[in-house]
């Protein structure tokens, strides 16, 4: 079975600080990887996804993530956060050979202080 670990439950940063949120998954086969974000009071939105190809994926709002297969990781990064990035971030995985449902991590709450 697939599972996803997000080790940081709550991250607090000042504006302009750099961000890296950890995500590790456990599954032996080929996977699709996702980061979703939920801003306060809004629905889950897709930030970026990796299916194949270049392991460095660029998403919306200046976010990027790097797939490192040997480490089973898909960490999310942003060089300089803004107050508007305050939200909850979810990493998710799906087995390419399996069903279409996603396995999510427990989420990381990011608070950016102006």
């Amino acid at each position, binding site marked *: 079975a697939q599972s996803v670990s997000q080790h940081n439950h709550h991250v607090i940063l000042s504006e302009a600080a750099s961000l890296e949120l950890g995500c590790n998954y456990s599954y032996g086969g080929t996977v699709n990887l996702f980061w979703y974000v939920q801003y306060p009071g809004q629905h889950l939105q897709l930030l970026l996804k990796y299916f194949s190809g270049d392991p460095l994926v660029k998403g919306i709002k200046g976010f990027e993530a790097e797939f490192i297969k040997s480490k089973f990781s898909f960490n999310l990064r942003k060089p300089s956060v803004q107050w508007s990035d305050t939200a909850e971030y979810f990493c998710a995985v799906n087995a390419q050979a399996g069903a279409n*449902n996603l396995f999510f991590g427990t989420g990381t709450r990011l608070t950016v202080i102006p």
Partner: protein
Amino acid sequence: EAGVTQFPSHSVIEKGQTVTLRCDPISGHDNLYWYRRVMGKEIKFLLHFVKESKQDESGMPNNRFLAERTGGTYSTLKVQPAELEDSGVYFCASSKGFNYGYTFGSGTRLTVV
């Protein structure tokens, strides 16, 4: 295009009562998914419809949960009778196909007291 709509946005019911959650997917999206997040835990898959058929219901916790999607349009998720552990946020998502990605609704927060 209109997004995925869920209602109610919030429901508080007593243990033993029945609650029905509704999801209206984006028009033309054959795939509809239900997920649930119990407080502090991960978002977990419940089931997947393709049109009106249940493609995968492996995540449904028990037979107190019944999902339907009559006519392949909107879907309902009924919990009967509700238990305290059913409290959480229920998300619905729809997609044209997996490679297109999901669009999520805002969720229904269910509180069972």
